[in-house]
Structure formats: C-alpha cells, structure tokens
C-alpha cells in the first residue's frame, strides 16, 4: 500500500518531531518544514496529498500558505491548520481562504491522525 505524502509545517521542533513520529506511525510519509520558506520550496518540488500547518510560523504564516496554495498554485490539496486557543480570528480567516479543517493547541496526536485520515477520505 502506497503511503500518502503529508507536509507538516511546524516551527516547534519538539512538537513537530512528536507529531512526525505519530503520523509516520499512523502510516503517512511525513515531510517536516520548520518555516514558511521550507514549505514553499517543498511545494515547488512536490505535491503532498495533505498539508498540516501551524498558523504562526516564521517568514510565511499558515494563512499565507493557504492563500499561496489556493490562489497561486490553484491546488485543492486538503489543508488542516493548527492554532493556539483564543486565535479565532485567524481560524476564521483560514477557513475563508480555503482551509479544510482546524485543530487547536494543545494538540492530541491521535485526534490529528483521525482528522488527517478523514480529509483524505473526503478527497
């Protein structure tokens, strides 16, 4: 069975490594990008099946990432955003720009895994 490619955009290394480990264990081929520039570079080279991105990232925020994917790449890749609690405005903006799902910090890795699976099934 071919593993689905997942782009994880998260600037917190510890959390990223933990989620990376959990998602890989969940059967995904995870590519981790620590900031917006990495994300952009990766997207120029490859097209993931799904993107999991933090909203607050250096150089290139999660909102800008959604805008880039939807408007510049004209891609319908499912995007799940991770946001800290009390950041509803950004979440609303993300949904307006075309985010598919949203999960708030503190994150439950198991919940994220379920949400990723559901979005891929939708596709």
């Amino acid at each position, binding site marked *: 069975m071919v593993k689905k490619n997942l782009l994880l955009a998260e600037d917190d290394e510890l959390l990223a490594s*933990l989620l990376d480990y959990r998602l890989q264990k969940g059967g995904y081929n995870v590519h981790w990008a620590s900031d917006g520039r990495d994300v952009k570079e990766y997207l120029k080279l490859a097209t993931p099946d799904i993107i999991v991105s933090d909203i607050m990232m250096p150089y290139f925020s999660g909102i800008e990432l959604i805008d880039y994917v939807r408007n510049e790449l004209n891609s319908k890749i499912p995007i799940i955003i991770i946001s800290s609690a009390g950041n509803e405005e950004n979440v609303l903006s993300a949904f307006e720009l075309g985010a598919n799902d949203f999960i708030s910090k503190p994150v439950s890795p198991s919940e994220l895994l379920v949400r990723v699976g559901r979005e891929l099934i939708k596709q």
Partner: protein
Amino acid sequence: MKIISQTYQGIKLFSAPKIPTDLLWDLTIVFSGLGFLFLLFVFIFRNRLSNKAIKVARQKKILAPIISNFLFYENDATKDESYEYINLKVEMRELLKTPFNRLVLTEVLLDLQKDLSGDSRNRIFQLYQDLELHLDAIKKLRSWRWELVSKGILELTQMRVLAAYGFIKKFINDKRGVVRKQAQIATVTLKHEGISYFLDTTRYGISEWQQLKLLDVLNSFEDFTPPRFKAWLTSRNRDVVLFALRLIRHYNQTDANKALIELLKHKNDQIKSEAILCIKDFGVFEALNMLKSVFRMCSVDIKLQILDVISSLGKEEDIEFLESIKKKESNFLVNSKAISAINAIKPDTYVPTEGIDKTITMKNIESDKQVNSSQFSEAMNNNELPQDDSSPVSDQKENSLSNPDYLDPEFEDELIFDLCFMEELEDILSDYKEEDQEVDYLPLDFLPVVSEQDELKAAEAANPVKKQGVESDEKLEEESFRVELEAILDNIRSHEENDINDYQEDTELEFLPIVVDIDMEDNSGEMPEIHEEDVLSLEVFGEELNVQNKAALLYDKFPEVDLLPGEEMEKPETADQKSIDWMTFKKDAEPIDDDVHAENNEPEPDDYAENRRRDEENLNNVPEFKGFSIFQELFRTCDRESKLILLDEILAVGDEKEVHFLKTLLNDADKKVRTKAEIILKELQALLTPEIEVRETVNQTIINESDTEQPGPDEVIQSVPNQINKISTSIMDKEEDILKSLEFCFLHDFESDDDNHASLFEVDFELEETPIEEIEDNLKTNKKR
C-alpha cells in the same frame, strides 16, 4: 591701577588646579582594563549560554524521538518496536545519570505537556515520574533560594506530582510572597481538598488576582464538588471570608442565609458589599429588616446597593422606609435610588417633575384626538372602512393614522375639504349648544354638490358588470359619512334635556344625502318596486327640479328613508347660484311639493301632512347661517404674519362669509390682527355693497312677480332657476375675480369636471412683510377700481 591689580588677584581662585599627568594615565589604563574585562565577561557568558542552548537543542533532538517512542509505545507493538523500546530504555537510563541530561529531559517534558493534550499528556506525566525526575524538583524545595523553591513547586504542579502535595502545602504560609502564592495554587491544583486546606490554614491576605487564579484552577476541575464555603464565613482572616463569599455566590450555595445576614453588620465594606450581592442573587427576603437597620451606618456605595436589593426584593411595606430615606437623605444618588426603588416596588408612584411643561393638559390631547378622529373619518370616507365591524375602533384609528399612505393624492383635495367640513360642522354644533338652541335643522349650504349621475350612467352603460362594486364602494363612503354625523348628532341629543319626538329626530338627518341608491334594486324583493330612473335621479340630488316629483313618490313609499328637504332638491346650477340667498328660493319652492301631490291625486297621509307642517315651522325657525369661510380654517394654524397676509387675501377674494368671519376677528387677542381685520371688514363691506343691493333687488323682483302673476308650480320651478342664473351670471361677469370665494372655486372646479384638481387650493400669494399703511393704500386702490 591698584584696583585692577586687586581685581585680577581675586580671579586666581578660578584658575585650573595642577593635576599630575602620570595619575591621569594610570586612571585611563585602569578603566580601560575594567571595560575590557566587562566585555570579556559578557562575551564569555554569552558564549556559554549560547553553547548551552545549542547543547540543549542538540540534546532535545536526541531525546525527542526517544520520548516519542516512549509516549506512543503500545503493548500490541511488533517485535522490532518492542526491541527498539527496550534499547531506548537502556539508553535513557544512561542519559539520566548526568544532571544536564536530566535537566534537558525535564525541560522537554515540561514543554511537551503544554502542547499536547489527551492521552499523550497523561503519558508524559507518567514518564516524568517513571524517570524519577520529580525527585529533582522536590530537592529544589529544600533550597534557600526562593526562585528555586518556586521553580520546584511550579514543576511539581505542572507535572501533577500528587506525592509532592505534602511538601508543597507547607509553603502556604511562607513569608516569601512568590513562594507562598505558588504554593497556594499548587495546593488547590494538586488535590480537590486543597481548597479547604488552603482556606483553613492561610493566614496571609489573598490578593484579588490570586483569588481569580484560584477560581480559575477550581473551574478547570472536571469532577469537582465544591465544599460548603459557608464554613469559612466565620474565619478570622478577612480575605478568606471575602473569598468564601465570592465562592458561595459563584457556586450558588444558598445555605448560608443566616451568615449572610450577620455579615451585613461587618465593619468591612467589601465583605458587606459581597454579602449584599449574595442576598440579592439568592433572594434572601429575611435580610430586608437587617438591610434597613444597617442602612444609616453604611457608606454611600453600600447604601446604593442596599436600595438596589430593596427595590428587587422589597414589598409595599418597605415603601415607608424608602420614603423616609427620600426625605432625610441629602446625597443625590441615594435619594434618586430611593425614588427608583419606590417606583420599582410600586410603579408610577413618582413621575418626572423637572422640565415638565405644566401648561399642557389632557384637554390638548383631547383636541388632538378630535383631529385624529376627523382624520379617521376621512380615511373611512376614502374606502378605508374596515370590513370587520367587530374590530375595535381604536385599532382602526391606529391603522388609518399609522399608514398615511392611504392619502391618495388624487383624493387629497377631497380629504382636505372633508376635514374642513367636519371641523366646521362641529364648530357650528358647539355654537348651537352654547346658545341652547334646539338643533332642528342644520344649514349645510357649504356642502359640496355631488353630481355624478351622468358619470354613473356612462359607467353603467360602459361596464354594467362593475356597477355593483362601484356602488358598494360609494355606499361604504356614504355609510361612514352617515355614521360620523350620527355620532355627532347623538351627542347633541344626549346633551339636550328636552325630549324630542321621533319626527324631530328624523328631521335632524334630513340634511344627509339620499341613501336610496341602486342597492335598492337588490332589495326589490323586500321593498316596493322602484324604477331605476327614479333611483338614479335620487342618487344625485338636485340635478333636475322635476326630480322632486319622483322624490315625493319615494317619500311616500319609504317613509323611513331620510329624504332631503325640499330646498336641497333644487337644481344646483352653479355653486355661486347656490350660495345666493337659498332661503328665498326655498320659500318659493316649498309649495311645489303640495301641488305635486295634488296633481298626482295622491292621498296625502296624515303623518305626512303633519310632518310638512312641522317642517315649515322648523324652516321658519331656522337660525341665520352666516356661511363658512375657508379662511377660518387657515387662521387656526398660522402665525400673526400669515394672518395679516390672509386678511389681504380676504379682501381680494372674500365675500359675505368672510364678512362674518372678519367680525369674529374683531375680538381677536392679537391687536394687530384685530386692527387689520377691522380695516379689511370695512373695505370688504364696501366692496360687497353693490352685490348685496343687486341681490336684494332680484329677490324683491322675484317676490313681486310671484305675488302678481302667481304662476303654477311648474312655471315657478322653471322660472326661478333661470332668474337666478341670469342674476348670478351678471354678477359673476362683473365681479367674478373679486367675489369668487375659495370654496366656490373649489366647487366650481368639481362641477366643471376640471381635471386640474391640484390647483384647487392654490392660493397664489407670497409671504412678505407689508406695512399696514401700504395695505391701506392697496385697499383704497382696490376700492377705486
């Protein structure tokens, strides 16, 4: 020279002291060395910190996968996974031997527990204790440095180390504020019973922020059963009592009523205030007496709170207390609150008195109502009559008034006329009432002549199907009109003490338009048979004089139907003709009916004869009607300047009706208006003298002719209108512009079926200030003309 030399000697004091250059060099070298050392220390410590950070980051990268493996290891793992897990465990034990790795691992776990939730978080807590990292934190508690102790308490709290509860609770009364506060939060967080222990043992004050933090911790508990906080209302610690009161209010613990009432006597305002809030929220009615008792001794803020509670919980027996406060209390806020509390208990006890115009009374409102009712009648006349009679009249009024859109511009002039008419009618009736005159007859020569017979016939011929609908609309209008008039007449009847016989009551409605319309056709089964021509001719009164014949027939057949009096059956000709001494015409036309009866050989019923006799008597007793001036209505609503301008217009377009109106203005309150009215009256009378003379001559001629020739009734019928026609035409030819009154113009426009209804009320003048002298000059010029 001597003085100068002395002066220069004095300046020596300000000259630079001699400093050895060697010392300066030494100082420069020392300070440069210190600066270099400082920079060196900064560089070294910065490097150490950054190196440590790099080392920690590197170590975290090493530890992160190990932690992930530990966190997500499951019992159903594969052999490889289990093997890897065991290897990592061994590796971890080796790593933990060094304090740096323990420190890094602790940091990693503390960071992760913030970002993770659910099962992963619980596993982190478990891992922390499994690796015995909590022992390091407990060791920190023994440190003499407050920051380390505080850090240790925080770490143990975040990682939920319940075993450390016993160690931490000792710090609740620590003299170091930061440690104490950290310990308080830790105690409450680690165990549910921590709050009780904290409230029992704390001796220090609890800041507002700390109370909020503690409340936040309590709220974060999922399965927390709060203790009965009333137990701490007896605490010696004032802040504990205050915090307990807030918790009681937060958790709605209503079992502390007695304590709450007792706390109203507390010396501390904060506690008192909190107790009052609890009393208000829980509706403790038994606290009212205590509230009243302590009221005098309280501060303004507490007094306001007490009054607020009384307003929400108080009853009528508390109003006396509030009244006493209102009288005695000098503070405006308290006084106002007392009034508002009284109004809350018993609404509308006090109404606003400041800034109220006391001259406005209910009478004004009544007059407004009258205007509204007349507007309502207009709406009714304008097909706005509600179909459902059961609906309340007030509702109808509201509907009609709240929807001004019903005023179709097409009918605007008619509506204005109706408005004037209704008001004028009421004035006339009220005048009659004042004079105690018996209202046997209502002079209505100012009524519009409704002549639509031709139109009706044409419409009937064109579209017979629609006839019934049109008639029903007209009937509605007439009925609403009748209802309005009957209401007024009923008032008059009830006002008069003398009994009026049935016939008199009937004659009171004689001025009404004939309501025998085409609907009669529908009722032909019940009513005697009537020819359609007869009915149509009666619909439009006064179209032809020979209609009287048919009307008399109908009168005989339908005695219950209110026919118009004989004089109103006259041919309207023109509005001007109608205005010319209708009384004279009436007398001449009166006997015609009798002759008609005689000619037709119809037996004259006894009642009918009696009625006719009374009718004649009534007609002889009819009071002189001075006429309706359109200016009267305009004068009601305008200011002085407008009145003066209108007086000029009266002179230009006025006639006999305006003379009467001007006479009433001689008693006007405004001197200017009074003076000008007097002048205009004289001028107008002078202008109208030729007309009156002509009219009198004509009347005399007619009377003479009738006396001498004594023509038959038919001849009279034919000749009189012709004579009137001639006279009126001659008058109009001569002085048409001067004599034509506004209402005549109005009626004339209607009669001539002029489409330009918009110009009905066009009073073509501009508002400008004109001195009286100039007006008098103008009047003289007009007179000469």
